[in-house]
């Protein structure tokens, strides 16, 4: 029953002789060397790579900046590989990393890219101390010691010294993330104000060496990039990339169908299904890193009972949701590491089982259930999941009231440990298993005053000395096979006892014109690439 077909008939029947608007016809399709992307980009609040921490921002930075270590967009599963650093060596004690910087790379400004730029950028990340800084400061870098721990010994050599031994894969993975992107030190320094590391300027400007440079950014509207013809990896086929902020899925779909955009990145499952028969269009799928989960505050006397925790894990209709309103966009996944990560765990021990849950609830002393509140951000997808939970929990007598709020409101409650059940998503900060292990399975001090705000285990008041120790051990293991096994073990234990019910992993569905190819969205490890696109 498609209204579109019905309308088509109606409109054609009645409107044959009506003249078109006098406007000149818009282009039937976008020009061959311009890529137009429809995306939600209202989360960009800064273009400074050492400050940004949002999806759309990282997409931008991944094309404007380069890092010492990065990925091959044609095969992301290979893992990190040399980029601006053409090679590196690691000392015997595993603490000193010596990078050799690639020769002949230039910034958009024409300045040569040297080890001094790398030194400046990494120190800038530590010195600015913005939200993502912890990705680097977890190696012991501080504003006081960075003069000696991050140092360019000549134009081509950068030496980085960590405070203790870490798995090299962990350190190098962190060097692929946006916080480690190399900025043009001369350019940025020239815009420095009151020791702000040029932050105010770089928030709205670019100073990179990547495949594209910034032309303009209009917040909540669009950003435009121009190709860097001298890009060291390849000459980008798309001379210009325009990313437009289009909030509604339906609007994105219409633009895509009309050929006014080449790529639509936020299509709902229904709109994906709606374009599936159109031979001018294609849909790409890519498993991303975000995990959708619910978590139970362990300060709550009911929710801290092990049987209650287990019961709730059996009251989630995983398959039902996956097959219905989450179709194609979220896949059932019940461990905290995203699939494709080192140490991934594919086990799915839980399924929707009301009888089992009821039994567990009686064991815990709540045969008739209880009342509970779920806090959730007012994003439609999450509210839908919440409503499904409300429905399935009720089947075991658990009466759920949903507390919706804006993202910041809900987050505020979560960080203040002021909630019963939280429903939300977590995306990895850098492509190493430690990122999620550190937050889901590590809580060095459960006291309120400890304020380990970045750790989900702390936010849920979950005291776990043993798991914390296991996580600590895994991050120092230098043998990759052993390290992977350690994460599998941690996740198995986590699955069994934790107050977290991981439910789904994000699967990104991108609608594109059939003539567009090479649009890589970055999988679970990185962000989108525009320079690989051809038409």
């Amino acid at each position, binding site marked *: 029953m498609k209204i*579109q077909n019905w*309308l088509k008939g109606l*409109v054609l029947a009645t*409107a044959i002789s009506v003249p*078109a*608007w*006098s*406007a*000149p*016809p*818009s*282009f039937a399709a*976008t020009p061959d060397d*311009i890529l*137009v992307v429809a995306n939600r980009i*209202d989360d960009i*609040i*800064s*273009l400074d790579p050492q400050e940004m*921490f*949002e999806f759309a921002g990282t997409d931008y930075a991944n094309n404007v900046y380069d890092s010492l270590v990065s990925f091959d967009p044609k095969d992301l599963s290979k893992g990190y590989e040399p980029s601006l650093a053409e090679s590196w060596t690691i000392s015997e004690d595993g603490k000193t990393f010596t990078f050799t910087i690639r020769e002949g790379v230039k910034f958009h400004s024409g300045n040569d890219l040297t080890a001094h730029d790398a030194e400046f950028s990494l120190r800038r990340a530590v010195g600015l*101390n*913005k*939200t993502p*800084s*912890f990705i680097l400061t977890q190696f012991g870098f501080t504003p006081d010691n960075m003069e000696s721990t991050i140092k360019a010994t000549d134009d081509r050599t950068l030496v980085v010294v960590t405070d203790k031994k870490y798995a090299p894969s962990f350190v190098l993975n962190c060097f692929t993330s946006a916080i480690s992107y190399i900025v043009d030190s001369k350019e940025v320094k020239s815009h420095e104000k009151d020791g702000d590391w040029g932050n*105010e300027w770089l*928030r*709205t400007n670019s100073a990179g060496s990547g495949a594209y440079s910034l*032309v*303009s950014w*209009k*917040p*909540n*509207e*669009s950003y*435009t990039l121009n190709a860097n013809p001298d890009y060291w990896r390849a000459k980008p086929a798309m001379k210009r990339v*325009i990313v*437009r*902020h*289009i909030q*509604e899925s*339906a*609007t994105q779909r*219409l*633009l895509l*169908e*009309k050929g*006014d955009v080449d790529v639509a990145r936020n299509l709902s499952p229904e709109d994906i299904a709606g374009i599936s028969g159109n031979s001018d269009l294609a849909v790409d799928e890519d498993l991303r890193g975000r995990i959708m989960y619910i978590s139970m505050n362990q300060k709550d006397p009911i929710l801290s009972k092990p049987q209650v925790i287990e019961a709730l894990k059996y009251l989630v209709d995983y398959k039902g949701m996956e097959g219905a309103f989450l179709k194609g966009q979220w896949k059932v996944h019940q461990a905290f590491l995203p699939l494709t990560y080192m140490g991934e765990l594919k086990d799915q021990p839980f399924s929707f089982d009301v009888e089992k849950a009821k039994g567990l609830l009686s064991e815990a002393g709540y045969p008739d259930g209880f009342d509970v509140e779920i806090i959730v951000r007012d994003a439609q997808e999450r509210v839908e999941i919440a409503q499904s939970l409300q429905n399935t929990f009720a089947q075991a007598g658990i009466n759920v009231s949903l507390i919706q709020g*804006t*993202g*910041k*409101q809900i*987050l*505020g409650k979560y*960080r203040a440990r002021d909630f019963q059940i939280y429903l939300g998503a977590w995306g990895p*900060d850098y492509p190493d298993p430690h990122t999620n292990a550190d937050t889901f399975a590590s809580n060095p001090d459960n006291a309120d005053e400890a*304020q380990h*705000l*970045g750790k989900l285990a702390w936010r849920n008041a979950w005291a776990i000395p043993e798991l914390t120790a296991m996580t600590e051990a895994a991050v120092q293991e230098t043998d990759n096979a052993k390290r992977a096994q350690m994460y599998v073990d941690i996740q198995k234990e986590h699955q069994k006892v934790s107050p977290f019910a991981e439910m789904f992993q994000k699967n990104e569905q991108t609608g594109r014109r059939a003539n567009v190819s090479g649009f890589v969205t970055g999988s679970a490890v990185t962000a989108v690439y525009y320079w690989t696109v051809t038409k």
Partner: protein
Amino acid sequence: MNNAAGTATQKRREGSSPLLKRLRGLTTVLLSIIATLVGLLFITFLIGRVMPIDPVLAIVGERASKEVYDAAYLSLGLDKPLIVQFGVFLQQVFTGDFGISRLTARPVSDDIIRVFPATLELASVATVFGVLFGVPMGVIAAVHQGKWQDQLIRLFGLFGYSMPIFWLGLMGLLIFYGILGWVGGPGRLDVFYDDLVPVITGMILVDSLIAGEIDIFWNAVSHIILPASLLGYYSLAYISRMTRSFMLEQLTQEYIITARVKGLSEHAVIWRHALGNVMIPLITVIALSYANLLEGSVLTEVIFAWPGLGQYLTTALLSADMNAVMGGTVVVGLIFIGLNLFSDFLYKVVDPRAR
């Protein structure tokens, strides 16, 4: 002739010289503007304080550690007493500085200069549409009260009025853009025309004409026509309703009967005398509806990817970007105050009874 309803102020004014009278009037107006503005700012400020949204979190995000959070807290000046914060804020506003938007990383004034013309353009075209069709429709409906013309116009107005705008907007896009291709898609221009016209007023329709870029002008027209006629449909429904109501009142008045008896043509009676007399309340209604449109229609802006004030304000509010909220509120406030003064002024000038 001054009756008991005449106010004390008016009595006092009569004794003064015309110049003094005008000066005093001007001062009163100025004072009232300032009073309204300060009241507006005070409430906005209070809102910023009572909203259970943490402005610090809006900047630092979910992952921030305690140290990062605390640093941002201090840099926002949130550690100072409330009254000091309000003082600092007032001082800034009266020097025209709304501070930096936390969300766009640029001065709020720049942001508003960027987003407001988009809303102004849309609202103006919509209002022209609403008045051009709404007033005659209202008059016709009143003249033919109860007849088929009246019912038809009523139904037509009602239809638009009762339809959720995002439903109508999406359907409009689907039909006129998706299927027929008569109008431009979402956004103010085709992307390829972006940034080609020098920004003077910020309204593309005007700027492109100034620059002599006729192609761009027509492209902008093709983009604005759909959202503007949808919004215009809403104000049309309202304006025609109110026109009809005002006209019905007038048409039963004695002077109309007298005019008819005197043998004036029906046309003159209706369009000159009756409509002339409802002009003032009508202008109030139009001003109100224009002002409402200038506030920005969030849903329309979202569906048509129209980067206007409504979206800007809502996003800012939901992220507790209070600098931006205050800036936007002041702008919207000034518009309302301006339009109200204007309609007050009309009452005084045009309607001798209210003098």
